[in-house]
């Protein structure tokens, strides 16, 4: 009866209630959608880091990570592989030769880490074959007489392997992407010109185009003008097994793009056989074994079992290799919940205000109800229910809308084109697939109810302080 009456009371002043409910709806939608984006972003980051960059567990000699000394190879690699694979929950292992090197092209040089891998084995752990930029080659699929290197997009840009060039065909394909003629006319004088770096090209375009055109078309122009020198080569120089500087010429097998500049710039994949030959290592000399497990929830357990088997080796799981990732995945829910709490705290002021007006308006009625025998608990319950209804109605509508919007955008994702560079510097794709767990909706529902309850306390206390005789006398 009390709840029923409270519900009807909500609709007494329709306009006022709708204002509160609408603000609640908008606030909850904005909050949950943002949470969906952040959640999706962090999930993608974790996913990319584990499946394309670091894998789950690394095993190497104890001192190896200090300065990547070529001498620290693992003894009896076959036995190590077999022992790791015997641990329950381990899906695959792969072995790597790891060498620090300088990468040089005619114009530039960069410090890098060269990973000598067996492509088939590596692909059981990381999805590198899926990261390849179309048209730049493959993940060691083609046989070649020369040494091959699979490098990151950002390194390719640094080494001028990727260049920017406008040709007639570039202009034509820009036209099909709806770049207007007045922009294309401006570009025509540049036909045949080459830019060796992205920066130089962007600078030139910026001075050429109006800010508005630049904002709208710079990205398309950049993408269309991108060109890859096929059969590009670079040299890698490093120290061999006998501490003598050596090196080799490597042809670019393919260019990968994983939305992580740091990684793209520093990690080069080559065939382990090439690297072993050039450094004088034996066929079975590897520095590192990487491990993929079936369920990352078991990370600690499996790490423990592997440590048990190899007391003399260094074993690190992804949480230890990238502590910030572990922290992020552990705290996402807490941070996002805190975010919702802040939004609800802001919205609660609207509810408090409305409920204060309600109590003021109904002074006589509340006096009458106390007079005829409605006790304090029930008056409190009635005001509290009304406040909870206000927050819950808006909250539920907000949750439904966010669920719909997140469901609609979850499969295709949302592309934050303008912010691409910033995202990639953080190792995150600018194409975000919002995602949210059902349990988060439950948490939010509970928070909404708590908001309703807390918002009602002050107004309800005012109602309880009413003296029925006084209340009934007031005009």
């Amino acid at each position, binding site marked *: *009866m009390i709840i029923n*009456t409270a519900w*009807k*009371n909500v*609709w*007494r002043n329709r306009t006022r209630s709708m204002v509160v409910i609408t603000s609640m709806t908008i606030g909850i939608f904005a909050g949950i959608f943002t949470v969906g984006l952040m959640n999706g972003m962090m999930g993608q980051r974790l996913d990319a880091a584990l499946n394309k960059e670091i894998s789950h567990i690394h095993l190497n000699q104890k001192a190896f990570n200090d300065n990547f000394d070529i001498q620290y190879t693992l003894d009896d690699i076959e036995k190590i592989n077999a022992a790791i694979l015997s641990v329950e929950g381990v899906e695959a292992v792969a072995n790597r030769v790891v060498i620090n090197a300088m990468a040089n092209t005619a114009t530039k040089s960069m410090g890098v880490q060269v990973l000598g891998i067996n492509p088939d084995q590596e692909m059981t752990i990381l999805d590198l074959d899926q990261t390849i930029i179309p048209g730049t080659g493959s993940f060691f699929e083609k046989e070649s007489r020369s040494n091959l290197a699979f490098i990151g997009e950002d390194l390719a840009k640094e080494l001028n392997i990727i260049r920017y060039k406008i040709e007639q065909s570039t202009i034509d394909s820009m036209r099909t992407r709806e770049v207007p003629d007045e922009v294309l006319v401006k570009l025509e004088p540049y036909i045949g010109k080459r830019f060796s770096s992205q920066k130089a090209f962007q600078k030139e375009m910026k001075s050429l185009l109006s800010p508005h055109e630049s904002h709208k078309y710079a990205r398309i122009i950049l993408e269309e003008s991108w060109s890859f020198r096929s059969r590009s080569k670079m040299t890698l120089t490093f120290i061999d097994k006998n501490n003598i500087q050596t090196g080799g010429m490597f042809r670019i097998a393919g260019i990968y793009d994983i939305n992580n500049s740091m990684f793209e710039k520093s990690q080069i994949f080559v065939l382990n056989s090439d690297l072993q030959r050039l450094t004088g290592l034996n066929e079975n000399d590897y520095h590192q074994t990487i491990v993929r497990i079936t369920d990352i929830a078991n990370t600690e357990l499996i790490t423990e079992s592997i440590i048990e088997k190899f007391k003399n080796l260094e074993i690190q799981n992804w949480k230890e290799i990238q502590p910030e990732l572990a922290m992020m995945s552990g705290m996402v829910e807490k941070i996002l919940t805190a975010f919702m709490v802040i939004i609800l705290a802001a919205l609660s002021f609207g509810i408090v205000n409305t409920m204060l007006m309600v109590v003021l308006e109904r002074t*006589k*009625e509340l*006096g*009458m*109800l*106390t*007079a*005829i*025998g*409605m*006790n*304090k608990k*029930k008056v409190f319950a009635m005001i509290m229910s009304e406040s909870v209804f206000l927050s819950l109605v808006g909250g539920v509508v907000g949750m439904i809308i966010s669920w719909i919007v997140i469901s609609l955008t979850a499969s295709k994702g949302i592309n934050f084109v303008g912010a691409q560079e910033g995202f990639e510097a953080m190792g995150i794709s600018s194409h975000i697939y919002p995602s949210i767990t059902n349990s988060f909706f439950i948490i939010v529902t509970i928070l909404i109810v708590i908001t309703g309850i807390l918002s009602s306390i002050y107004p309800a206390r005012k109602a309880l302080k009413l003296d*029925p*005789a006084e209340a*009934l*006398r007031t005009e």
Partner: protein
Amino acid sequence: MKVLELKNVHKIYNSSDIKVHAVNGITLDFEQGEFAAIVGPSGSGKTTLLNMIGGLDIPTEGEILVDNTDLSKLKSSRLIDFRMNNIGFVFQSYNLIPVLTAKENVEFIMNLQKWPKKKREKRTLELLKAVGLSDRINSRPSKLSGGQQQRVAVARALASKPKFILADEPTANLDSKSTETLIEIMEVLNKEENITFIFSTHDARVVKRAKRVITIEDGKVLTDLRN
């Protein structure tokens, strides 16, 4: 049988600097089945007196016994329950919850008292029939006339089977025809069901219908006549 006793009741309002001796030593008894009007000029203390009888206000001095229970000895939470179970109220206005229908308003107290649904509904219909509103049970107060609203209030006041019904100027906002109807319904209930009514009024036609007329002035009983 005595349902209500007032023994030397005083009420002094001390708010702001001025002291107001609103009720100044009133002693009265009420029997079961009375139909009593309290009359007096404006400011004479009628509302103050009825509020104290109803346990809405506490006397500064003296005792009020409802069915031998001293109201001033009850804790405030017990007092609310006591009011619910023993005293029916009809106010001048704002008697009903606007979002509830006539039926729901009458049921409200029985709901608080946790009556079983069947019993509750049966009584509600009986009461609304008794006040002549059988055809308006599902109307909200805004769809009822002032007189009809007051009749619903009488039905609601009767719902919990109180010892007596207090009504402070129940007809003040009504036209003469509605006043007539309301007072007639109260009279019938008094005669046929032996319901005790204590009401205040300014209206001479209402006073005429009372079986007992208590006149007060300056917080004191001037006359107490039975006819």
